[in-house]
């Protein structure tokens, strides 16, 4: 454990504010709550002797750290304690193997993409999901995204860059690359519409799922490789935007604060990294955001993911939505959707995850919207699974309001594919 994180427990005055924002311990007796597993339990921990396995039921949502008025790094303490526990437990065992598997989205993505129809069929097949439930420990009902069958990186390599005087780097993450390449394309279109040349360097996983599954050494490897690809741009002062709130937070803060990486590449990347909505709002504040929005007569429930709190940027999507005529937003006031990255996929945690998310799902269902909006891909998948309502990244709404969707994204996609094939 990094001493700075452990030392922060000294600031705890037991005020219990973190316990009043505790989406998980409210629904399960297996998780004793952030104050308990954080500053309290940490006093009982010594390297190599984890006594409390209940720390594994912390989802890592990070709300505790955000709400602590004293500056205790509660989520970070938990994360490091969980990593120490898994290190002691070794690599062998069903849970260990399962965690290793689901913590490597880019490996899964690479394997699944070429065989997407088969893989998607398998993910939807009850018998196979039952087998995976029992043999691997991935819950049979957990929300699994569909492979797009193509990667965003491939699209990016072929995408004709615009000449522009402003440049931005796009860190898209694994979700966009393997499951939602269209979301990435929309983001590029929105930035290009605002006069940016969008650079999309080769990139792999940020290591967050490995971190949240307690595999710190492997996670550090992913972080170092990723920031090595992004750092040259950051050093030139080029801003980097991310459309995954959790992966963005990883580079902004967690890789340093939880994994303890002191790498210079990481430091320079952290300073240049912006959530895409944050970035657009800054543009707007400077008067540089195009506001030629067409009316978008929708009522959209908006959920700010837990990880977004860690950015310390408020809810910039709401300010952007306010620029769009006729777009009405329902700001949801539930803290967490329950998925917490890979937490809700696990067979022993799925029910907890769904119980955490249920109040959110209910609010969304009651609004009966066409779409909901949320900045994190795993939260969107969970929201769709739990509420039955399609969830999109806020950028997709801006994209539509800019009128960039005519022809429709689906048609553009098909056209794009045909063009690609013709090129080949």
């Amino acid at each position: 454990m990094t001493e700075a994180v452990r030392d922060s427990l000294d600031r705890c005055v037991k005020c219990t504010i973190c316990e009043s924002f505790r989406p998980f311990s409210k629904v399960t007796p297996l998780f004793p709550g952030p104050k308990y597993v954080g500053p309290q339990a940490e006093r009982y921990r010594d390297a190599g002797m984890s006594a409390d396995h209940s720390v594994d039921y912390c989802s890592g949502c990070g709300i505790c750290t955000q709400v602590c008025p004293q500056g205790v790094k509660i989520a970070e303490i938990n994360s490091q304690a969980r990593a120490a526990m898994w290190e002691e437990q070794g690599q062998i065992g069903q849970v260990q193997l399962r965690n290793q598997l689901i913590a490597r989205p880019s490996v899964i993505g690479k394997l699944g993409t070429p065989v997407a129809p088969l893989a998607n069929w398998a993910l939807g097949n009850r018998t196979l999901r039952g087998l995976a439930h029992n043999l691997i420990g991935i819950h049979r009902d957990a929300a699994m995204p569909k492979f797009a069958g193509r990667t965003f990186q491939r699209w990016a390599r072929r995408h004709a860059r615009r000449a522009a005087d402003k440049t931005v780097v796009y860190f898209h993450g694994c979700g966009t690359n393997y499951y939602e390449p269209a979301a990435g394309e929309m983001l590029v279109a929105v930035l290009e519409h605002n006069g940016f040349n969008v650079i999309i360097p080769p990139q792999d996983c940020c290591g967050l799922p490995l971190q949240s599954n307690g595999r710190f050494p492997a996670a550090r490897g992913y972080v170092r490789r990723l920031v090595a690809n992004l750092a040259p741009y950051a050093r030139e002062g080029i801003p980097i935007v991310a459309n995954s709130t959790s992966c963005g937070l990883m580079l902004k803060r967690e890789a340093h604060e939880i994994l303890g990486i002191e790498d210079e590449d990481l430091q320079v990347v952290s300073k240049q990294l912006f959530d895409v909505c944050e970035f657009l709002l800054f543009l707007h504040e400077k008067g540089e955001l195009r506001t030629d929005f067409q009316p978008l007569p929708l009522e959209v429930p908006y959920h700010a993911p837990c990880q977004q709190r860690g950015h310390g940027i408020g809810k910039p999507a709401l300010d952007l939505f306010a620029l769009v005529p006729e777009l009405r937003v329902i700001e949801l006031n539930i803290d967490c959707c329950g998925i917490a990255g890979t937490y809700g996929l696990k067979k022993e945690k799925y029910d907890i995850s769904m119980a955490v998310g249920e109040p959110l799902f209910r609010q969304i269902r009651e609004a009966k919207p066409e779409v909901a909006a949320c900045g994190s891909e795993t939260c969107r998948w969970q929201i769709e699974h739990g509420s039955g309502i399609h969830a999109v990244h806020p950028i997709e709404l801006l994209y539509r309001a800019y009128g960039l969707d005519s022809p429709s994204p689906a048609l553009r996609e098909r056209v794009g594919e045909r063009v690609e094939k013709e090129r080949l």
Partner: protein
Amino acid sequence: MSSLQTDVLVIGGGSTGSGVARDAAMRGFSTLLVERRDLADGTTGRFHGLLHSGGRYAVKDPPAAIECIKENLILRKVAPDCIEDTGGVFVVTPWDDPAFGDRFLAGCKNTGVPVHEVSVGDTLRREPRLHPGIKRAFTVPDAAIDPWKLVWSNVRSAQEHGARMLTYHRVLSLDVDGGKVMGAVLQDVRSGDEVRVRAEVVVNAAGAWAGQIASMAGCEVQILPGKGVMIAMNHRLVQTVLNRCKLPGDGDIIVPIRTTCVIGTTDVHVTDPDTSEITKHEVDFMLDEGEKLVPGFRQARALHAWAGVRPLFQETRAKDIETRDVTRSHALLDHKKRDGVGGFVTITGGKTTTYRFMAEVAVDAVCEQLGVQRPCSTAKERLPGSERGATYQLGARLGAREPLPQSEEIICECELVTRSHLDAAIARRETDSIDDIRRLLRIGMGPCQGGFCIYRATALLHADRHLDYATANHSLLDFLEERWKGLHPILYGDQLRQTRLDDWIFQGLFDVRHLPR
């Protein structure tokens, strides 16, 4: 006045007295233990918790070192539940003479203290907070020992062997008749009732107060009370006992004990063993010394400070003596031989690490006075609670709450004391004092120093013991005052913020100043 009859009357409920009571009871003597306050409320409950390996005395006081390592190994066998095997390390910091390392190694080898020189790199990896400028490091089998658990285990064992115990009874006088101590008159300090005890032999195990007891029999026993100040830090900055590798001095040791680590100690000669004053100078000095072992020590959160008084025995009268120069070995005084007063034995000096051996020699002297031969078995028979033979683990209380940590109400969150623990302790202790219960459960000893548990504990005490409101209020206020004594010397940084919150709770929310009592 009621009266009691016993073979052996033991005066003093610290580690020595409880050890004597157990030993005497196990040898078949009817035994009565008397303590003026609560068990382990004196020196025993006010030390840093070090189970000496002997390393500290290897150069300065070899006989003490030999005794320590012998007893260290015995206690690991008979009292493992009271011991956490943290290990210890002696480090040569930039402020210490590097040449002392060789004297230390030689001293340990001569006294039989197992010692290994280890690489500085390995030591810093094990203890990342340790000063990176250390030049040499030596491991020794130091450990942490829980004084309350130790005393309670001894008393429980003594009671299993038929011994009786009177706490909160002070000795008013010793009955001396015809050159022999016949017994004592005790007074219940809470009710004022007096008890006359007739005893074949009286063992004076009153520690720093042994001189006061001996004088009641007309014997002069010179104790030089040496006051030592200790500060417990909010969490374990180190997981191993850290010692400076130099001649023993002030503030040169940090002991990780339970959820805290304790820096010790100062050593000031005082005249009154009841002195508990802690000066700003002492606190500052200790924090400065702490910085030398653990950089950033001053920024870490201090939890509680206290003073204990060492019972250093001095057979010759000496003025201006440096108490640390007095031997740390114990003193057994057979007053029949020494002063011509029969039926009276004083056992003092020493330290908690050697309490068992001190008890053994004291009861040997009792046997001699009574003209019987009964062998001692305390070096072999395990204490209650230690039957499994496993040493205490830091995570034990945390682990005990798995796999359903929310299954029961926690009263003291810092020290993880549950409602059933507290109910059982209230029933067992039969006391209205939360401080008595604290010594059993460690309730109120964590970061918030009772801020969030005292009112809960008082409510349970009130219900369980059917107290009237005045008594319950009294219990609450007494405990707050006890905690306050240890807080005011270290009111800075994070603990000051905690104390302000606690103050708002008790003064603001509960308005304790105006509680009817």
